[in-house]
Each structure stands twice: as structure tokens, then as C-alpha cells.
């Protein structure tokens, strides 16, 4: 057996401070940038001088590794620079201040990125947190909490990312949660999930250390920049992104004078997400590369077929909104919707005064869907659907164009389900999901009584589950039944019935008893583990049952309400 020997250092942080003469903040930044994390020792007492008090332990090897980082020197330089600058300020030496500011020591994190993510796939895999953070920072106000450059950089990178996702059409799932909007994309075979908060000003909490966040952002912006560059390259897009020629031209004519700087208006146009990007190699329209078919056998063949099927589905999903022309009213979250619609090939526009980059007007006759988030709208055009924004997201998650009736203005929306939940056997499945699955299978939505049936079926399922899970309970219940029968016999004599011998049942019981007896013979350790597993399973079932019961109660009360209303009408 390969045995690894760790050198544990007693409170290793103290160790760095002594050896490197580094301040705590620099240690923290180093750990963050280099991705050094503490380890849990195997024998805590041995390491901690016999005490079991919680303490962070770093591997001595890791700390030695930190010592060799050239960036430590840069940090020191920066510290000195800050000290000098403070002194100059104190003495009011303004020219000195300026000179120093000009020669501010700067450092790059490129080599750290390369070292932490030796391959590009590694970097893509870890880009989740980077995205969430940079989207968060890009929504910060440009005052106070962090440097304006950082915010601008974050904004730029996140817009680049969104543009890439649109260009590659790799968005898969979207989820409107109460925290923000989750997006999941599949980039180079990696599923990447990020969250964007809703567009509101942040109420900055006081108990958050923004220095830690800023250090992370520093790392993440570097990572994201390189990842974006490479991703743009893979699609033959120009980096930094440029708008496609025609789009640029059409946009230029409008509202140019609103922005002071050319660059600013350009970045705004990019972030409008309405125009496609310029490519280094002109795009060939029909580039559906046929997969080379290799003769495969047996399992491989099945796998291949499954893969092909999935691919086909994905291709179809990518073209979900193709041919649709949507218009966003001003109260809907423009960026999110524009991003999602464009990711699936739809055309989208908005009011000219809302944001730069709108491509057509509300009066356009060819608009198919108008997305509105208010109870009514005054002026309605006949040849388009007025729908609520949830429709778009539900369509994406369902991978089909859902019927629009449930999403009309003023209608109570159907629940918005999380696309990330994948129910395994025995889990509770909300009826809406079942309905959606039926729709996906191509079945036509039926009347309400059908729903009810479904629900009933479902309940039956639950019951069965109960039985299989809690055999003891079943047995007990049966015993009770027997007892009850016995009692009834004692009270009055009924003509004897031939009780059909339920062979299946008897067999099952026998098996159950065997199992129980075998459980008696289990070793202590195994028994413990077994009990734990069974407890977990039972809890799972209990939760599912609870949800089902709640749903049933809700539906019942709803029905009762409906009946009452009907009666009143009568």
C-alpha cells in the first residue's frame, strides 16, 4: 500500500509569519491566489499537541510552495509603495505623490492561472465561481466598495461571456429563483452554472470583508479573460469582441450622442446583446458537420445511438426560438430575456428609449410574441401573443414551445420548476413536472379530470412505496387486523368464510421475517451503518409523502373553493 507521509506543522500560519515576515493580509491573498487550502489531519491529536481544539492546518509542503512564489516580492513592493505614498500625502508632496502613482508596482497573475489550471479544460471546469463573482461585481455601483476599473472589467468580461454563449448557443437551463437567475451552459462538454442577481442596488452588508472578495475577483477576472480569449478563438470570433459589420452600421445611426465616449457607447452596444459578433473567418451557413460513422458493435452501438439522439435533441433545442420575433416591454428584465432569447435563435427587440441596440419597433407587424409583465396593456396588436416572461424560461427548460394560454396577461402563472432537479425513483415529483414530461413525449394536454387521475395514480404509487419500505408497519397492521377479526368473532358468530390463502402475502411475510432474523445477526458496525442507511431512506420517503400530502390538501381546498363559486353562480 502506498502510504503518504504528511508533515504537519503546528499552526502553520504562525510558521509563515515567522519565516516570511508577511502580514496576515498578504498570507491570505497568497493562499487565495495560489489556491492553497487547509487540510484536515488524520490524527488531530497528534498534530495539535494532544488537544482537539479546532485549528486550521496547512501542509508544510504547501507553505514551502508559497514561499517560492515570485509574487511575494511584488506584494512586498506594493506594501512599501503604500507606505511611501502615505508619507508623501502626509507631507503634502503632491509632485512626489504623482510620481509615485505613476510608478505604482503592478503584478500579473498569468503564471498563477497557468499553474493552477495547466489545461484549458481545467480552467473551463472551474469558471463557475468566477462567473458568479464577476456578474455580481459588475452590478455594483461605481462608488465605494471597490475600484471602478474592477467593476468595469467585470462588466466587460461578463458581457464577453454572454456574447460567447449566444454565439455558441450553449445555454441549456435557466431558473428564476428568489435569489437571482441561474443559468446553466454547456461549454466544451463542461456544465457551467452561474447566478446573476436581480437588477437592484445592493444594500452592502457591513459584516462582509470586501478585501477577500476583491482578491478573489482579481484572480477570477484574469482567469475569465484568458478563458474568454480562448473560447472566442475556438469560434473564430474576434477578441476583444466586435460587432458584426451590418449590425454596427445600423446601430451607429441611432442615439450616438447619448454617450460621451466612443468606447463607452460601443461597450454598451455590445452589452445590449442584440447584434451578432464579427468573425475572423466568415461563417458558412450550413456547417453541420456530419459525424464520421465508424462501424460499432453491441454496447458501443447502443451508446452511439443514445449519443446521437441526445445530440439531435440538443440541436433542436438550440433552434427553439428560431423564427420567433419577440418584443420586450420596458418592465421586464431586458438583459436576461435578450440573452436567453438570443441564445436560442430568436429575434428580440425593445423600446428605443429603454436601451441602445433595439432592432425594430413595437409597431412592427411581424412580431410574434410581446413579453409584458403587467396585468393589462392598453394598446394591443391583434397578430401577436401578449405573454408573461416566465413563458420564455419555461420553454427553455422544457425544450419545447409550451402552449401560450397559461401565460397570458393577468392569468395566474403555473409554478416555475427548477430544471436542475432530477428525480430518482421514490422522489416526489410535482404534478406540473409530470405534465411537462407528458408534453415532451408529445401527448396532448387533456382536460382537468385527467390531471386528477394522474394525481390519484401518483398517490397509489406512494402507497406502494410505503409498503415496500415499511414492511414492519404492514405486518403490524395486519396483526392488528387479525386481532380485530378475532375480537369480532368473540362478540358474534358469523358464518365461516373460507379465507383465501394469500400465498404471495405469506411468502412475502416469510421473507420479511427471514430478513429480520438475519438483521439480528449483523455485526455491530454493519448494523449501525445499515440502520443509518435505512433511517435516511425512511426520512426521504417521509419527506416525499409529506409533500404529496400537502399538495393534495392544497388541491382539495382549491377544488372546494371552485365548487363553492360554481354554486354561487348557480
Amino acid at each position, binding site marked *: 500500500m502506498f502510504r503518504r507521509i504528511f508533515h504537519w506543522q503546528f499552526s502553520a500560519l504562525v510558521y509563515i509569519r515567522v519565516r516570511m515576515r508577511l502580514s496576515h493580509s498578504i498570507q491570505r491573498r497568497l493562499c487565495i491566489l495560489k489556491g492553497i487550502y487547509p487540510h484536515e489531519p488524520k490524527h488531530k491529536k497528534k498534530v495539535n499537541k494532544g488537544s482537539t481544539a479546532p485549528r486550521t492546518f496547512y501542509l508544510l509542503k504547501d507553505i514551502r510552495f508559497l514561499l517560492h512564489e515570485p509574487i511575494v516580492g511584488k506584494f512586498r513592493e506594493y506594501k512599501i509603495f503604500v507606505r511611501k505614498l502615505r508619507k508623501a500625502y502626509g507631507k503634502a508632496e503632491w509632485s512626489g505623490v504623482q510620481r509615485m502613482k505613476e510608478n505604482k508596482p503592478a503584478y500579473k497573475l498569468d503564471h498563477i492561472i497557468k499553474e493552477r489550471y495547466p489545461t484549458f479544460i481545467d480552467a473551463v471546469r472551474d469558471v463557475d465561481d468566477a462567473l458568479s463573482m464577476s456578474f455580481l461585481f459588475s452590478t455594483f455601483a461605481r462608488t465605494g466598495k471597490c475600484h471602478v476599473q474592477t467593476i468595469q472589467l467585470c462588466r466587460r468580461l461578463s458581457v464577453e461571456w454572454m456574447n460567447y454563449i449566444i454565439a455558441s448557443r450553449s445555454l441549456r437551463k435557466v431558473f428564476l429563483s428568489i435569489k437571482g437567475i441561474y443559468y446553466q451552459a454547456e461549454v466544451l462538454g463542461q456544465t457551467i452554472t452561474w447566478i446573476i442577481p436581480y437588477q437592484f442596488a445592493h*444594500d452592502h452588508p457591513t459584516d462582509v470583508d470586501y478585501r477577500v472578495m476583491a482578491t478573489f475577483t482579481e484572480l477570477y477576472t484574469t482567469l475569465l479573460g484568458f478563458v474568454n480569449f480562448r473560447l472566442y478563438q475556438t469560434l473564430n470570433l474576434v477578441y476583444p469582441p466586435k460587432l458584426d459589420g451590418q449590425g454596427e452600421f445600423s446601430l451607429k445611426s441611432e442615439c450616438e450622442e447619448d454617450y460621451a465616449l466612443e468606447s463607452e457607447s460601443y461597450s454598451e452596444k455590445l452589452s445590449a446583446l442584440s447584434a451578432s459578433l464579427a468573425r475572423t473567418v466568415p461563417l458558412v451557413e450550413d456547417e453541420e458537420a456530419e459525424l464520421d460513422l465508424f462501424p460499432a458493435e453491441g454496447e458501443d452501438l447502443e451508446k452511439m445511438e443514445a449519443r446521437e439522439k441526445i445530440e439531435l435533441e440538443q440541436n433542436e433545442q438550440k433552434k427553439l426560438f428560431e423564427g420567433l420575433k419577440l418584443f420586450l416591454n420596458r418592465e421586464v428584465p431586458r438583459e436576461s430575456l435578450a440573452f436567453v432569447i438570443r441564445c436560442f435563435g430568436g429575434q428580440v427587440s425593445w423600446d428605443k428609449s429603454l436601451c441602445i441596440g433595439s432592432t425594430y419597433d413595437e409597431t412592427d407587424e411581424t412580431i410574434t410574441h410581446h413579453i409584458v409583465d403587467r396585468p393589462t396593456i392598453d394598446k394591443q396588436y391583434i397578430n401577436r401573443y401578449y405573454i408573461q416572461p416566465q413563458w420564455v424560461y419555461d420553454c427553455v427548460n422544457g425544450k419545447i414551445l409550451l402552449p401560450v394560454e397559461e401565460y397570458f396577461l393577468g392569468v395566474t402563472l403555473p409554478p416555475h420548476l427548477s430544471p436542475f432537479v432530477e428525480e430518482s425513483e421514490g422522489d416526489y415529483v410535482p404534478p406540473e413536472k409530470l405534465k411537462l414530461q407528458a408534453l415532451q413525449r408529445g401527448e396532448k394536454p387533456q382536460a382537468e379530470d385527467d390531471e386528477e387521475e394522474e394525481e390519484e395514480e401518483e398517490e397509489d404509487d406512494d402507497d406502494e412505496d410505503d409498503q415496500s419500505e415499511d414492511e414492519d408497519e404492514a405486518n403490524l397492521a395486519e396483526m392488528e387486523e387479525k386481532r380485530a377479526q378475532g375480537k369480532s368473532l368473540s362478540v358474534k358468530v358469523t358464518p365461516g368464510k373460507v379465507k383465501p390463502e394469500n400465498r404471495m402475502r405469506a411468502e412475502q411475510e*416469510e421473507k420479511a421475517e427471514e430478513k429480520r432474523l438475519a438483521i439480528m445477526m449483523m455485526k455491530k458496525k454493519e448494523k449501525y451503518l445499515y440502520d443509518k442507511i435505512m433511517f435516511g431512506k425512511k426520512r426521504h420517503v417521509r419527506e416525499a409523502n409529506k409533500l404529496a400530502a400537502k399538495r393534495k390538501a392544497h388541491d382539495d381546498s382549491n377544488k372546494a373553493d371552485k365548487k363553492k363559486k360554481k354554486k354561487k353562480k348557480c
Partner: protein
Amino acid sequence: MRPTHSGTMSKLKNKKRNLEENEDEQLPIFDKDGGKDAHLDDGDEDQGDLSDGEESVFSGLEESGSESDDEEEEEEDEEDGSEEKSSDIEENQTADGDGDDQLSAKEVIKPQTDGQNSKEEKKKKKAAGKEGGEESVASVRDSGLQISSQVDEYEHDTSDEEDIRNTVGNIPMEWYKDYPHIGYDLEGKKIFKPIRNKDELDEFLDKMENPDYWRTVQDKMTGADIRLSDEQVDLVHRLQQGKFGDVNFNEYEPAIDFFSNEVMIHPVTNRPQDKRSFIPSLIEKEKVGKLVHAIKMGWIKPRRPKETTPQYYDLWAKEDPNSILGRHKMHVPAPKMKLPGHEESYNPPPEYLLSEEERLAWEQQDPEYRKLSFLPQKFACLRAVPAYSRFIHEQFERCLDLYLCPRQRKMRVNVNPEDLIPKLPKPKDLQPFPTTQSLVYRGHSSLVRSISISPSGQWLVSGSDDCTVRFWEVSTARCLKTVEVGGAVKGVAWNPNPSICLVAVSYDDTVVLLNPGLGDRLVCTATDQLISSYEEPEEVMDQSVQWAVAEGEGHEQGHRLILKHPKAVRQVTWHGKGDYLACVMPDNGSSLQVVIHQVSKRRTQNPFRKNKGLVQCVSFHPIRPYFFVATQRYVRVYNLIKQELTKKLMANCKWISSMAIHPGGDNVICGSYDCRLAWFDLDLSTKPYKVLRHHKKALRSVAYHRHYPLFASGSDDGSVIVCHGMVYNDLLQNPLIVPVKVLKGHTITHDLGVLDVTFHPTQPWVFSSGADGTVRLFT
């Protein structure tokens, strides 16, 4: 003067600041010609444009006249002017070195006065219009009223003009509060305070009577009362209203731009320009030369514009597998964020919303232990969704997790629970064993502590706490005989010898040997004869136990022999041959805990000299002359012939309650009060071969079947568990233990369930006695 007024001012300020900075910094470049600075300035001044001297006049205006003493300052700076005047003069006169720049400034000023004549002329004209107000200014100034209107101070020296009677100078007059004098006059004599013995009343009278009271002011310097003149009162009023002190002063006079952009024919100063203003500066030339040289040599490079935006490139252009650090393989990537479920939706299905109680419970729970970190909420439309207040918090916590949490690869136990269950032979294949309850023996009114079965298997005896011993027919559950004894029966034991019909019954401190008179009459009479055939030995031994023969009523009931013990007897057990009888008298203190009686000789032995713990139960080896004694935690095996301890079995439990020996004699089972049943293989080890914890409560009794590979255990949980316990003749094969049946039937009374179990000697049947006063037969 070409530059406009304000322009010069700002420039001047900058220049001054620069000067100061340069001096402070003491940069090497400026070190050399630091001394020449003043010269240079002088030169500039001579030239007449941007001259430092003239500007310093204005700087004086700006900076409250710290270094100049000219007239303008007096006029404009009404607050400080008169106070500072004297000190300035002193400075001028004494010229004590306050600092280089100040000195130089004064030097600058001196010559300027000549050149400024023309300007002063104008000033004078203005001043002429003003009212003189030459009254004793000094008298008023300390009371906060300062009169600035003065005539040109260059005509009469201000110090002379001032009426200085008190020479104490500018000090707080409170210092003289406690002295009779108030200062010194010019000759050095004390100036005494005017006699003021006004009290409040005088003051008041004065206030009432004196019409000028309101305009009387006390001079702090001299202590005298001064009556203000009309003009002065007027002045005070004007100042109070925020107007200029001078009545005739027009504050809105059109400004005359002296330093206009128009080039006049006459220069502002009349001073001839220096020579050095015509020839190029050598120092500058030297400096420029050095710079040019440095540029030529490449020492100085033009400043490159800094790149503020980060540059990105293809970082992974050449992925070199060799450059991947070894430590990267050890790296544990951070787990991804947990994906949200339905309950996080802004419009979740109704079942995911918390009910009122759940919400309350959620709120009361500690945030650390909450299953959901948020309250599920439902919004009618997307428009109504508010910002999530903990968003930044959560991101921050994620950051903290990333760099502060120890990472570990945890092996997830992905075990199918079915695999954990041991594979055992099916109970069906191990038949016969008792499966159902077939008979219930009712009759006892209290708990049945002990049962025993006759060697023929026809009769059952049970002893109960209701002070009776009952004899039952096994096959019919009929109670054949009831014998009353003098106490709660603790133990009954049927003599295992089939040719003897005797039952040992223990209650209190007595053991009674009963002849139930059941079964074969021959056997019964033979037994009676055996007992009565006893002959008293010649020598009477001292015995701790008294033997007595039952007579009278007792004899009719079946009592044959009565053994009186010194202590309460808990258990009785027969040797397999049926002659020896062992009794247990648990007592921690004495060595007399176990006694062995020989019935045929009516003899009693105390086998142990020493007390080794509280004896729980004893048992004879079925074949060999061994004797098992179970104390609280150990089972000791004694060789009765050699009279020595052969083995000590560690039961690994807290308190042994019962024990049974396998008919083969090599295996022992022990039941304990901590729910365990330990199976010892005597050939294997002194530790249990197997410990079963199949009962939920304390075990009360265990038993082996005499022929079938079965053993049973009865427990306080009211169940009897029958196990298959096969012992092989092959020494290499370990015993096979399989639980085969859980028999339930006894009801639990007083927290006690089954108290005793015993097997039928020939059939696979098990009897159990319980605390509910019944004996049950399972077949």
C-alpha cells in the same frame, strides 16, 4: 503688466507652494542653487513681470498679512491688522531669524516700497476721503471694536502715535487681576487701578441715572471708563450691521484693473532691468545640457503610456504536460455550488411553501442548523420579485469556503443495505423448531419465576411468587397438583434422573425436596424409599445447612426433605446423575454462596473457601466433573475432582443473569442484563465466540435443547427467541448460530416479560414462564 490680476495670484500661490515643497524635499537638484533662489526672485522682480515682491503684497492680502506691514493690509484686514502691527514692527526692527523664506520675503519687500510710490499716491487720495478717526484707537481695540481708519502710517510712526501708557504689552489683563496695579508706565512706575468701589447698587444707580451709561466702556488696559463719542457709536452700529466702518466708503466702486492685459506705455516699476535678464542662464544651460546628454546616452527614456487594461492572450497555446506540477495531481478541486431545487423558485409549486408552523420553526431554528437557508416565497409575477438581501453574504461565504475550508476526499459509502445483511441458511431448512404458541398454562396469580420439566417430558413444574408450586400435565395444560410453600418460590428443578421423582423447590432460605407423586407409581415409591432408607452416620458433622425430614401435613403434600440454609436461596440445580444438588445464595460478603448437597447421604459441602464476586448462577457439567459458577462478569469453570479452577470465561457484559451448558459440554451460553447473549466455545477461547444482541431488553433466562441443535433466550421484552445453534464434532468447524424464530405471547407486566425458558427433553418444544402468571408452550 500683462497677466490679469487673478491669474497672477494663482500662479503666485503655485509658485510659493512649489518653493516650499522643494525645500522640504531637499532634492539634490535643488540643493545646489537653493541659495540662489532669492536672487532669482529678485531678478524677476526687477524685470517687473511676475515679480515676487509685488505679488507678495497680494499674498499678504491672502494669507492675513503674516509678513507684510503695509497699508493695504491694515485697510482690508480689519480683524488682525492692528494687533499684528506692533509685532510686525518688532520683527522688522529686531530681524530675528525666523526662517529663510520669511527673511527673503522681507528683503523683497524693502526695495519694493520705493517702487510702489505711484500706487500709494492713489491710495492716499482714497484715504483722504475717509474720515480720520484719529482718536485713541488703542483704547477701543481690546474691547473688540477695532477701528481701522487711519492715516498713512508712513507719515507718522504708529508706535509713536499709539497712546501707550501701560507698557505690559499684549497680555491677558487677567494676570493683573489680583494686584492693585494694572501695569507700568514708561518710567516703570506702577499704574494703579482706578479706585472702583462700585457695588451692585452703585452700578444700578449709575445705570438709572447716567444717561451715557450705555455708551460707557471700560478700558482693560487702564481700567478707566471711557465714554464713546457719537462717531464711535455710529461705527459700532455700522459694524454690527455688517457694513463697512467708513461711511463714505463705496464698496461697489468700479474696480480699476491695474494689471490689465493692455500694455501701457509706462512700466509699472521704474527699475532698470538686470543684466542677467538679457543673457541666457548658465545654470539652465547646464541643466539642459545634462538632460540632453542623458537622452543621448539613453539614460532617460520617454515615458511609455501605462496599460491599464489587462492584456489577454492564448495562455494555453502550448500545453506542456511536463510543466504540470506534481502537486496538481494531489489537488482536490472545490465542489461546485449546490444547484437550487423547486423550493427556491420565485413561483414554486404550492407544496413547497412552508406552512405557518413550519415557518415559525424555521425562524426559531439556529441559522446554522436550518435545512433551507431561505424562506420559500411565492410571487405572482416576475416584476414583484425583490432583491435577495443575502446575495453578497452568500457569495462571500462561498469565497470563505474556497480558501478556508479543509478539503478532503471522502469515500462515499455507496452500499446497498441488502448487501450488509449476512447470508444465513434459511430457517425453513433448519426445522424442526418451535414456531407457534400452542398451549397456555393458566393458574398462577403472580409471576412465575421458574419452571422445570420432568425427565420424561410429561410433567411440568412451575414455581411462582404466589407461594405455590404447580404441577402441570404438558399435553393438556391441566394443573394436576398445587403445593403451597411458605414463601415466594425462587427456583424449581426436577431431578434429571428418570428413576427418581423428586423436585427441588427453593423459597426464602429453604430448599424443599418434593415428591409430586406423578407418573409411574413405582418410581414414586422407590424415591420415597430411597429417602427414608437414609441412616444416620455415626459421627455427626457440623453442617451449615440443617437437614430435616418433612412430617405430617407437609409429608402428605409431598414434602420429603427440608433444607434450611443460612441465607435466601436463589437457584437450585441438579447434577445430571440426580444425587447432587447445588444451591446459590448470592451474597457479596461471605464465602458461603454456593453449597452442594448430596441427597443420598444428606451431606452438604461448601466447595469454595474464598468469595470471588456475587454468584449469579451455577451449573454442573452434563458429562464431566466440572462445575460452572457465573459471577457478575465472569464464568469460572472448576474441576471438582482436582478441586481447581480450570477456566475463567470473560463474558464482556456488565451483569450475567443466566447460563446454560450445551449437552455436549463444550459450549456455554450466557444471558446478561445488558441485552446480550454470549456464546462461548470452551475449546476456542475464553472470550465469547459470538455475542448476539437480538433482544431489546435484559435477558432473564437461556436454555439449550438436549437433543436438537436449538437454544432459546427469554427476555424482558416479552419475547422468546429461538436460535439454531449447531455444534459440529469436527473441531475445525465453528458452531453455526442462526436465529430462527421470535416467539411472542407473553404480556409485559411490571416491566418484566419472560422469566424462564426451558426446552422439552425430547420434542422441539419450548416452555416459557412470564411475569403475567402464565406458562406457555410453543411447538
